[in-house]
């Protein structure tokens, strides 16, 4: 008898290899399909609010690592506050006036 077959070995579909670059876009789609942002607000509709006001980055060029740092920090704060029981409405903004755009145009 093969005793190894009688052990309760772990079993899961959760893969060892993350393959994040391939999998993450599908996760974003799933979040958008379920309207995760809207569902979170609904879920905490009667909870006290935690209001983070987004500082508008300048609407010029692709994002750099500093933009990523800033938006991820904000997202960490808000997701934590949401889990901790707050309503966390968050409206992102962009700064659209000014010289850099005028000069580009």
């Amino acid at each position: 008898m093969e005793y190894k077959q009688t052990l309760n070995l772990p079993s899961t579909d959760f893969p060892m290899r993350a393959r994040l670059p391939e999998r993450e876009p599908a996760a974003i789609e799933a979040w958008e399909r379920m309207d995760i942002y809207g569902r979170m607000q609904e879920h905490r509709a009667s909870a006290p609010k935690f209001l983070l006001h987004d500082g508008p980055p300048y609407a010029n060029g692709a994002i750099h690592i500093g933009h990523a740092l800033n938006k991820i920090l904000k997202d960490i704060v808000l997701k934590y506050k949401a889990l901790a029981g707050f309503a966390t409405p968050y409206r992102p903004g962009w700064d659209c006036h000014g010289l850099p755009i005028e000069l580009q145009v």
Partner: protein
Amino acid sequence: MRRKCRDYADRFVGIQRDEFRRLGVFAQWDNPYLTKDFSFEACEARELAAVIETGGLYRRRKPVHWCASCATALAEAEVDYDEHRSISVYVAFPAEGAGGALAPYAGSKPAVAIWTTTPWTLPANLAVALNPHLDYVLVEAGERSLLLAAAMVEGLRDKLGLGRTLATFTAAELENLELRHPWIDRPSRIILGDHVTLEAGTGCVHTAPGHGHDDFVVGSTYGLEAYAPVDARGRFSAEVPEFEGRFVFEADPAVVELLAERGVLLASEEIEHSYPHCWRCKKPIIFRATEQWFLSMEDNNLRARALAEIDRVQWIPDWGRERIYGMVKNRPDWCLSRQRAWGVPIIALHCQDCGSIESSAELALHAAGLFESEGADAWFAREIAELLPPGFSCSSCGGVNFERERDILDVWFDSGVSFSAVMESEFGSGVISDLYLEGSDQHRGWFHSALLASVATRNRAPYKAVLTHGFVLDGEGRKMSKSFGNVISPQDIIKRYGADILRLWVAAQDYREDLRISDEIVKRLADSYRRVRNTSRNLLGNLADFDPGTDWVEFSQLPELDRWILGRLHDFISRCREAYDAYEFHLVYHALNNFCSVELSSLYFDIVKDRLYCSARDSRERRAAQTTMYQILQALVRVVAPVMSFTAEEIWKSIPNASADDRADSVFLSDFPAAEEQWLDRDSAGRWEGIWKLRGEVTRALEEKRRDGEIGHSLDTRVILSGSGSEFEVLEALGAAGLAEVFIVSEVELKRDDSIRSLLVEVVAPRGEKCARCWIHAKGVGSHDDHPQLCDRCHAVIVAAAGTP
């Protein structure tokens, strides 16, 4: 033009929005606010009306930071200080005809010695400033004598060829004496100002009120004009025929040459110094007096009120308070106007009949109404008559012929009033944001302009707390630059590693300082990511057949080991909650790493494996381990969700048989884990500390045996512990079987021996044969006819399993 600007902005809003979404950031992406939205522009016009209402807005000819290359005024926040090479000169201002206190020394050909690093501003000189609290001396210098601060004489003796001191004066004795401009046929005069210091120069400061803030302030108390004979492109006007049309910085050497020709150049040298540059074009800027609109810092006590509000705000890190306090305390009035096209106009009209300028809340509110439906473009597109409220006329002459003001508002006023256009619009007029979170350059940018705009019209700060982060540098701590080739883009990291690795990097940094990133740093983070992932996978895998509804084991029934790890889980959750509350995410990262790699992977998982794999599927001890692991997994996935959002959601959706409470559609619809009070058992925690220390010793002893080739697996041993006292009682409490489990050995024997003070560890050969199923050397192996290779425990498991279909 304005149409094209709108389209251009739209294009990049779209690009950046997609990039932010790719980071896993949740937001109202389909409803962002844009400062060019009609509703925003209208709100900004109403905020301007509110500012006008306070009486703090004024228009005056004043020196402002001016970029000659961009041909516009710049805000404080748009100025960067950088090293710049200038010619500095010592110049004699003839004082032979000054009279007054200098009259007795007219024969010594007296002159006032000044020092400047901007020779090109000398054509605009109108005065020489002395410090009212200093003593000044007249000193022989070759064929003439020079006046300078007494304290500066020794340092300049060689440079200026100074000889005998002829006389000493207080500054007050010299006030208002008339000097001659060094080459232009025009007087200059001695004035007094507290801004004069002894840091450099002669203690006598060349004063051109049209080209410097301090000069302007002190000049206006003496009624001096803000004279600046330089055009928008930084070229001398016809008022300075000797340099007409020349760019000011290029005129510097010619000025020096002219000074030398006139015999008034005392010395010159090149210096490197910190000098303001345009943040856009990086070129050195000038101070230039022009007609501009200002928000007064003194009217209505705006400065004092803003300073008081700063102290009501929580600044994270706390040095942010010092920084913004110092800036607000010392800043000049806010120059709100820009000579550009793409923005929200300063709503004012020029009367064509009497030349006066009309700016009123009524006018601004009327414009706001137009902006609401057409945007600020209406100001430039509409007929002038349509910009006038009904019955509007010049308040000075009653005239009705107007021309529109063409200056636009500083973009920092745009973003500064977002608290109104965005937050108050949505949440009501009394709302104050809980948090503003930006880079540490915003103390002089957005935090600053928002504070002033809000205090001016609401008398309160628009935020309760302000958090700032540093800047991202490369692995060696250098600024990233395209030319240096050390730029690391978020897009690259996402493509190679994924957004969760970037998010983990953000959490791992102490963002209060500047942050570093490099391939190596990201690789290290990918390693700790894998540890968390494997930990989670291990938990998920062992829960495959666990149903919390039917298999749950109450806490009081759990084995000591499980209660210990739940105690650690309590600590982990509490630490993380505190760290999140204090915005110290790097502490979450460290707690996570420790918990996964030490407590879980190298202790709990290793030990509990036998129970999970070998015990009967439905046995109490196996269900106990699963109950424990279920709680660990539920806590872990929620603690990491704000950081590793993608992975947390993936784990969440892989949890088998989650209980009804834990079955939300997304981990983000769940609650942060509660650290259960019953998990805390300080006595037990103390006991376990002793056990872990002993386990370390046992492991070392096993290692030695393994190295010597005496044993293979740790299960091929029996450990004998001999000792006495309270230390030994702890071991007895857990029992020999419990210790064997913890040490992962086949048997532990406890020998109480009062003659032994400190514990003795012996590793010897096991008794009994090795079980083919669990590898433990145990009694019973060989005694079961149906399964001679199995120990009693495994035999019972197999027989029971065979009995159930």
